[in-house]
Each structure stands twice: as structure tokens, then as C-alpha cells.
């Protein structure tokens, strides 16, 4: 057993039925001096209630501006093995599919060059390698590329696109999320590796409105699968659910945000014109209901988690697109919006914040995107667009009066 530091506070976090990051670091510390020092530093932080890390700086690999996040402790004399403890982001495969061999390869590379600790996966979607020294960055990168992996995004660049497992494992997928994610990753390699934007830019591809990648809350561009025809109903299966004890009125009809469902004890009716495509009824009765056949995606812009300013949810740019067939059109619109933001955005201003500053109508006008009434912030809301065409001369004066 390695001589591990005394960590009574951290040990509290090994108790209970759940997996513990402390247990994992302790296991790694039996082979890694970095992890041993990491335990010591963390225990000290818990005692002092102060973080002992500095981040950012110059570190990276040749030619790339993203993928490495510099990290140093401010107590290098006391914890010399983690005086450098840089993070690497590795571009994950779309949908996070790996062979066990690929995972072993990654683990071997990281045990050779770093602490051996990983996050699978970080909130960005990437594989995260935690903790290495500056001189190990290039050798790690060389081994990764030899194994077919590449670094992901960080800093003011396009972040590694991520996608749900889509058609590979999910019957609700309304478009091929993994293909869209892969194509986007390949198309925007320059933007991914060479920071050229005012701040980060994230794509997330969700196959249906369940939005398993939380794109509507996190991604600058959220691509969320949807359908434009009617929900498919199997009335016999609906009856089976009712016979099995499901309270369709309480658990389905009353929970419908569009109030578009009727249940008379035998037949479920849906007024599809008022359906908000929230997927709740489909999730409750997956054998009885399914998205329609005319499937595609809604593209939204402007979400972000709170960092500099508060959280934003995204708003609709393209109400419906068959992204599998119209990928070029999708990219064309994205690039026009990126151009405007790159040109006029302030340092560290996400596109959602930029849109708040300049106004959505002005933003779309500058990006030469036609405004249509379906561009909304929430379903069944008035559009956020002011249609001047509907005003006739003299209307403004009347309003002022």
C-alpha cells in the first residue's frame, strides 16, 4: 500500500453507497505520485476553505489554441508533483460510443503521460484527462493522434460538438444526430482548434424534444429533433396502458402543456395543432404514442449556462429543417450568424448575450435571415419579431394617443 497522506475530511466522502471520487483518486494514488499530492492538496483546501489552483496561460500543443487548459497549484514547494496539473480535452466520438479496446488505449496513454485520472465525460462532452506536466503535452498529443483521437475545443473557439446517441440507440430520434455532429466536427476543424471568436461557441445535437444533451440550456446552437405532422397513436396500446393502471387523465392529459388531449376512458384524442411537441405523453406511453413521420429538427440560438452573466435558453431560428438533407443550408445560416457575432461581439460575449444587446430582429437582419412568425422563445408565444409590414402609416401616432 502506498504511503498516502492523512485525509480525514476527504475520507468522509468515501462513506455511503455511492461511488466516490476520493476512493478513485486513492486507488490511483497507489501508482501515481501526482494523485498522492492531489489528495494532500484537496484535504488542505477543505481545511482552509481555499482553492489552491491557478488556471489558464500559454500551455498547448503546436498549432492548436484549444484542447489544453493550463493549471498550476500555488503551493508547488509543498506539492511538487502537481506543480503542473494541466487538463486535456479529447474530442469524443459522436454519441460517446467506444470499443473497450479504445478505452484501454486512452487509459494507457494517460497513465503513461499523466495522472491517470479522467472525467468520462466533462460537461463539454469531451473526454477529460486530468493532470499532466507541460513537457508531457506534446508526447500525449502524439500518442493520441496515433491512436486516432484528437484534442477538443477550449477557450474562444468552437467547442467540441456533442450529440445524443440518436438513431444508433433511440427510437425517438427525429434526425441523425451522430452524423450531424460528425459532419460539423469535420467541417469546422479550423474553428475548433484555432480560437477565432469573441468567446466560446457550442453546438449540441439532440434527436428529440427530450433533449438528452440539454442543448436548449447550454448550446449556442441547439439542434433539437422534432416532427411536423401528427403524433402517431395506437389506441389499442393506449387502452392497454389504462387497463394496466395508468391514470391517463391525471398523468397524461392534465400534464399536457398545450391542453390538446382528450380522454373519454376509451379513446385518446390529440388536437395536433395545439401540440407543443414536449414529448411528455410519448414518454409516459411509449408503446402507444410516437412522433410523426415527417421528422426533422428545430434550430435554436443563444443558450448559455451562467458564467459572466445569467443563464439563457435558446430561441428558434429555423422552425423546421430536414437537416439530414439540408445540411449545407444549415451551415450557411450558422456561418452568417457567426460572421456577425465575430465582427461585432465583445470579448467574452456569448452570442446569446450579443443578441440581447443588439436585439434579435437586428441580429437576424444583419445575418440576412428572413423573419417568420414561428421564431419564438417559447411555444405558443407571440413572435419576438416586430413586423413593420403590418403597420400602416398613422398607426404609430394612434398608439401614442
Amino acid at each position, binding site marked *: 500500500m502506498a504511503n498516502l497522506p492523512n485525509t480525514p475530511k476527504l475520507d468522509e466522502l468515501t462513506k455511503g453507497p455511492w461511488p466516490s471520487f476520493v476512493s478513485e483518486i486513492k486507488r490511483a494514488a497507489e501508482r501515481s505520485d501526482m494523485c498522492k499530492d492531489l489528495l494532500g492538496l484537496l484535504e488542505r483546501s477543505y481545511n482552509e476553505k481555499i482553492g489552491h489552483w491557478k488556471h*489558464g496561460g*500559454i500551455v498547448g500543443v503546436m*498549432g492548436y489554441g484549444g484542447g489544453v487548459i493550463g493549471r*498550476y497549484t500555488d503551493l508547488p514547494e509543498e506539492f511538487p508533483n502537481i506543480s503542473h496539473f494541466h487538463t486535456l480535452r479529447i474530442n469524443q466520438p459522436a454519441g460517446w460510443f467506444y470499443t473497450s479496446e479504445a478505452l484501454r488505449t486512452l487509459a494507457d496513454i494517460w497513465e503513461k503521460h499523466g495522472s491517470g485520472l479522467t472525467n468520462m465525460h466533462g460537461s463539454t462532452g469531451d473526454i477529460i484527462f486530468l493532470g499532466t506536466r507541460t513537457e508531457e503535452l506534446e508526447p500525449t498529443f502524439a500518442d493520441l493522434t496515433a491512436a486516432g483521437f484528437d484534442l477538443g475545443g477550449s*477557450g474562444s*473557439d468552437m467547442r467540441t460538438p456533442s450529440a445524443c446517441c440518436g438513431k444508433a440507440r433511440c427510437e425517438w430520434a427525429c434526425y441523425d444526430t451522430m452524423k450531424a455532429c460528425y459532419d460539423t466536427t469535420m467541417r469546422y476543424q479550423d474553428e475548433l482548434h*484555432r480560437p477565432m471568436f469573441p468567446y466560446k461557441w457550442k453546438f449540441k445535437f439532440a434527436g428529440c424534444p427530450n433533449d438528452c444533451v440539454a442543448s436548449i440550456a447550454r448550446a449556442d446552437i441547439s439542434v433539437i429533433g422534432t416532427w411536423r405532422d401528427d403524433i402517431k397513436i395506437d389506441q389499442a396500446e393506449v387502452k392497454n396502458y389504462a387497463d394496466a393502471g395508468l391514470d391517463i387523465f391525471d398523468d397524461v392529459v392534465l400534464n399536457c402543456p398545450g391542453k390538446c388531449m382528450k380522454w373519454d376512458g376509451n379513446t385518446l384524442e390529440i388536437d395536433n395543432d395545439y401540440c407543443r411537441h414536449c414529448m411528455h405523453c410519448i414518454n409516459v406511453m411509449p408503446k402507444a404514442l410516437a412522433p410523426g413521420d415527417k421528422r426533422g429538427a428545430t434550430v435554436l440560438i443563444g443558450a448559455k449556462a451562467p458564467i459572466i452573466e445569467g443563464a439563457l435558453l435558446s430561441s428558434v431560428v429555423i422552425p423546421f429543417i430536414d437537416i439530414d438533407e439540408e445540411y449545407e443550408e444549415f451551415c450557411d445560416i450558422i456561418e452568417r450568424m457567426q460572421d456577425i457575432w465575430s465582427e461585432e461581439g465583445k470579448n467574452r460575449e456569448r452570442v446569446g448575450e450579443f443578441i440581447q444587446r443588439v436585439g434579435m430582429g437586428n441580429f437576424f437582419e444583419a445575418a440576412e435571415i428572413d423573419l417568420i412568425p414561428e421564431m419564438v422563445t417559447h411555444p405558443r408565444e407571440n413572435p419576438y419579431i416586430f413586423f413593420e409590414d403590418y403597420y400602416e402609416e398613422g398607426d404609430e401616432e394612434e398608439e401614442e394617443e
Partner: protein
Amino acid sequence: MASEVSVQEVADAMYKMIKDAQGMKKFKAGDLTKAMRDVYGDAADRKTCKAAIKELIDSGRCVYTYFGGSFIEIPHDEGAANK
């Protein structure tokens, strides 16, 4: 009509701008692109500027840095780094 400007010429102008401001101001890729447009007009379009930045980085004359955002700087010793 805009006159021709080579990628190398733009790269050199960017490098001078970065060097002159070293220690006083950091530039992002967008800052450099806008500055080149002011100097060369439409001849320094986004594609040329992108290629010029790539040349600066791939040649090692400049590096990307991260200090709350991504900047392009001349390689230097990092104050935060532990030796």
C-alpha cells in the same frame, strides 16, 4: 478595387502589431483581423487574415494563450507557471 496583399505581408503586419503592444495589450484573432482591414481594406479579407494567423502560429512566431479568453501573443515566460 482592392489591391493584392499576400498572406505573408499580412502576417508580418500582425506580428508587428502584437510585438509593439506586448506587455500592454493582448489581441484576439478578431482584433487582428479588424486592424488588418483598416490597413489593407478589402484586400485583407477574413480568409487572408485566417491564413496569416495560421502562418504566425505554425511558424512558432506566435502562440495562443488563454487569460479569460483566447489571445495571440509572442511566446514568453508565463508568470503563473511553476518552474
